[in-house]
């Protein structure tokens, strides 16, 4: 009977299921391109040609012939396309000032001068963009910016005015803001902006805290992103939720579509105030897998893409393309976390760190790399008064862990990693400030060099009381391989095992999963990090007391104070001297150990006959691309 019962409905049931699944698929198939599309955008009215830039010798990126109309399309494969968060206070990933300005949908107040790839632009002179000129007050407590007239917002949103500039900046300073760009501003520059008149905005600076390198961030020379201008009245009319995901910029490309983690489609404006792009359509596709991007380039589905260094030689040979090194290389550096040595944190509520030590400050047998400057026998003030410290000021609780850190650094064969892991497309690095002081450069100090010397390293470990090694977790995230190379970390771990007999566990957790530990100061393991920065900048915020993100160590005030002077020191040579002073401490105490640089390479096909990227590690300046397909 069961067979008969089954047979009665079997055909119908099977047909029904198949038909339902088919209908579902077809129904869904007809809904191509769902997602959030920008509202209909019309080209802005023609504007008067811009006034000449007031900076001295601004080297603009070569622009295409103005009479030519945009045509054709450019397809770019990127490892990551952040979803647009068009509101500074919530833009933790810097989407407006990062990809937004890179892809020329948004614009900043000014930007770094154009330089050929590999050449760091000036940090003192910039190319005007939204601001046609600016003037710094004689007391250094403010700067006044003259906003260019006639710059139109994409769509029917009218003209950009000073109130938009002020809105953009002040929004990033709001309490609870997680603004990427706002966080990078030096503290004195978070004092608030104000509108002077329709086309004039004023940047206020806390007295005595004017940063001589204030233009670095605004010019796109910062670590991650700059400020892209956002539209105040659009925010008020659309409301926060719609405004956040509706791209309204002023750049030469109108974003018709910006779908996070998927694609961006830009359409060239033919009458933009600054530049007429050569290509009509810009398509940015997110392709998370390196292998997929490589395949897409080989099949010419994309014209330009980022490729890991290990694949460059083969791809360039096979496609006839060109590899372009972009931005500054990142010195991949091991931070020996847990060395929280500061006594106070002026910016935090819990100022007295002696009473409330950081949770990650665990100088014990399980953390042999963490020193304890507060131990009996250590003269804290004397110990940090010079490099090297005066005799008798250092206690075993500091000297032992210092030797452990040096041992772990000396057991790394950096040249072998460069040759074998990085395929030669890399440089040996000894300091986290590698890009400021590369080995062999004028200011590089001989004592910063770390020799590959396993025997001495082993001896150091024995001196510190660990002749048989110890167990250690080494966090090297896999989630940003073009910045911090996980294979480099594997090689380091293997060298520690081989030369020091360490029991190493490589933790490849995503960056975001352990990032909170850097904010709460619970981080107590060595981890791979490091980024390149231009000369004259300061690393102090990353290794000195702060309520925010930190490199897993806090140096004493005597060290931090000198380096913090770089925020206000106008003399570049003096800033470099401060950085050398800071690096001397870092090197002696070996708070971190750089290994090798990781460079950002973008490869384009031969069909891309022209492209003049600005300084930066991400794809940018598509307006200058000429494609001959």
């Amino acid at each position, binding site marked *: 009977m*069961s*067979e008969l019962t*089954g*047979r009665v*409905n079997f055909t*119908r*049931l*099977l047909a029904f299921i*198949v038909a339902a*699944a*088919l209908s*579902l*698929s077809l129904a*869904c*198939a007809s*809904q*191509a391109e*769902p*997602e959030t599309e920008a509202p209909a955008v019309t080209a802005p009215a023609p504007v008067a040609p811009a006034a000449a830039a007031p900076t001295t010798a601004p080297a603009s990126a070569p622009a295409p012939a103005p009479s030519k109309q945009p045509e054709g399309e450019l397809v770019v494969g990127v490892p990551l396309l952040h*979803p647009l*968060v068009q509101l500074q206070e*919530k833009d*933790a*990933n810097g989407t407006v000032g990062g990809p937004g300005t890179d892809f020329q949908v948004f614009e900043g107040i000014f930007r770094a001068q154009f330089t050929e790839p590999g050449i760091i632009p000036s940090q003192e002179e910039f190319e005007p963009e939204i601001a046609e000129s600016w003037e710094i007050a004689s007391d250094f407590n403010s700067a006044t910016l003259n906003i260019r007239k006639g710059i139109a917002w994409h769509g029917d949103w009218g003209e950009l005015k000073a109130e938009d500039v002020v809105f953009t900046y002040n929004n990033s300073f709001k309490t*609870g803001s*997680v603004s*990427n760009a706002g*966080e990078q501003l030096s503290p004195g520059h978070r004092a608030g902006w104000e509108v002077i008149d329709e086309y004039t905005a004023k940047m206020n600076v806390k007295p005595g805290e004017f940063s001589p390198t204030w233009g670095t961030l605004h010019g796109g020379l910062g670590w991650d992103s700059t400020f892209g201008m956002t539209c105040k009245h659009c925010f008020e009319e659309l409301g926060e939720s719609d405004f*956040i*995901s509706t791209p309204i910029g002023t750049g030469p490309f109108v974003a018709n579509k910006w*779908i996070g*983690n*998927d*694609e961006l489609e830009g359409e060239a404006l033919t009458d933009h105030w600054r530049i007429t792009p050569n290509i009509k359509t810009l398509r940015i*596709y*997110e*392709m*998370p*897998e390196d*292998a*997929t991007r490589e*395949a*897409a380039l*080989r*099949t010419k*589905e994309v014209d330009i893409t980022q490729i890991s260094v290990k694949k460059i030689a083969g791809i360039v040979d096979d496609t006839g393309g060109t590899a372009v090194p972009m931005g500054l290389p990142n010195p991949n550096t091991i931070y020996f976390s847990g060395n929280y040595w500061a006594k106070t944190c002026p910016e*935090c*509520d819990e100022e007295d760190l002696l009473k409330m030590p950081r949770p990650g400050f665990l100088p014990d047998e399980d953390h042999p790399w963490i020193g304890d400057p507060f131990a009996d026998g250590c003269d804290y003030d004397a110990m940090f008064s010079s490099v090297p410290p005066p005799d008798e000021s250092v206690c075993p609780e500091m000297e032992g862990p210092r030797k452990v850190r040096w041992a772990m650094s000396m057991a790394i064969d950096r040249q072998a990693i460069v040759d074998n892991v990085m395929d030669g497309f890399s440089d040996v690095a000894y300091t986290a400030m590698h890009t400021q002081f590369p080995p062999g450069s004028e200011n590089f100090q001989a004592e910063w060099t770390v020799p590959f010397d396993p025997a001495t390293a082993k001896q150091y470990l024995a001196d510190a009381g660990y002749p048989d090694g110890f167990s250690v977790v080494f966090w090297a995230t896999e*989630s940003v391989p073009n910045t911090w190379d996980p294979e480099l970390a594997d090689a380091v771990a293997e060298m520690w095992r081989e030369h020091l007999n360490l029991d190493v566990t490589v933790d490849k957790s*995503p*960056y*975001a*999963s352990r*990032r*909170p530990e850097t*904010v*709460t100061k619970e981080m107590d393991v060595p981890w791979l990090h490091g980024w390149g920065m231009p000369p004259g900048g300061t690393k102090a915020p990353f290794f000195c007391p702060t*309520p*925010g*993100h930190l490199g897993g160590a806090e140096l004493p005030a005597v060290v931090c104070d000198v380096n913090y002077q770089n925020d206000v020191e106008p003399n570049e040579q003096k800033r470099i001297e401060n950085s050398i002073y800071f690096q001397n401490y870092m090197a002696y105490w070996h708070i971190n150990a750089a290994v090798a640089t990781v460079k950002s390479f973008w490869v384009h096909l031969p069909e891309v006959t022209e492209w003049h990227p600005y300084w930066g590690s991400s794809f940018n300046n598509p307006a200058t691309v000429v494609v001959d397909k």
Partner: protein
Amino acid sequence: MDAHSIGRILFAPSFWERVCVAYTSIIHWKLTGEMLRLVLRKLAAIVVVLLGLTILVFSLSHATGDPRYLYMTQYTRTTSEAWEAQGKAMGLDKPLVVQYVIWVGNALRGDFGNSVYYQRNSLDMILEALPATIQLSGISFLFAIALGMPLGVLSAVKRSTFWDYAGRSFALLGQSVPPFWIAIVLVLIFSVQLHWLPTSRRGDWTHYVLPIVTLGWLPAAGLLRLTRSSMLEVLDSEYVKLAKVKGVGSLSIVWKHAFRNALIAPLTFAMILLAGFMTGTVVVETVFAWPGIGRLAVNAALNTDFPLVTGLALIFGIVFLAASLVADIVYGILDPRIRYE
């Protein structure tokens, strides 16, 4: 089926309406008796499982320490004042049970909170990504059935021949080779070497081929093996032997007598597979840059985007439970013995 239903069927105004009435009557009949009890039993079980799922997901938010960490970004600055304010806003000052009830209440309304990473409503994000995944998994599901079941029948009927070995080899490969490897090799062969198909992304029909093969191969292999073993069992049964003795044609035996009865297990398995397709597209969507919920889940996890992860976990759970309910009902319809258990 009662007399009233039979009367409605007979006196319906047109042929197609009679067909429809007959169909719905049968379904109605099925559901009014033991089937209804079966469905109610399963629904009760689903409620319990859902309750467990919510407790699990809620517990996970506290398992990693203070839930406020889950909402931190790289640029969060932790002053104790801001910390306390955030705790209050999240209801952390209330007893755990109250927190759970509030959280479940919000989740039932589809409010998982704004995505930390996207700064948008989590449910909106999921619903926007869902069509791409339904599209991919729906077609892959059909591909798996269309390939796995006929090959399973062929393998059983042509037992110990070339066709059997070929089918089993296909199944062995599909079940043993990781999908990410299949994906990369397919791209290498069909895109890079032969230039027949695009490497990735959503587009015209050519964009579907490689992701569908990658996604469908493993389930097709499972269906093949299950269909084959079921067919072998049925082909060895007494009534099939009797049919052979009576001289019934081999095609008729295979498709009319054996196949229908052998399909019970594979078909119910296929229902679960459908849910697996919906939730198992993570690798395929990442390799082929397919903008579905698989990639959304990867990005949410990589960014510790807790509200989004929570929403996805509950949606995935509901999809699985719904699929298992359908599978149970289908099984109950196909095999009445199930209803009396």
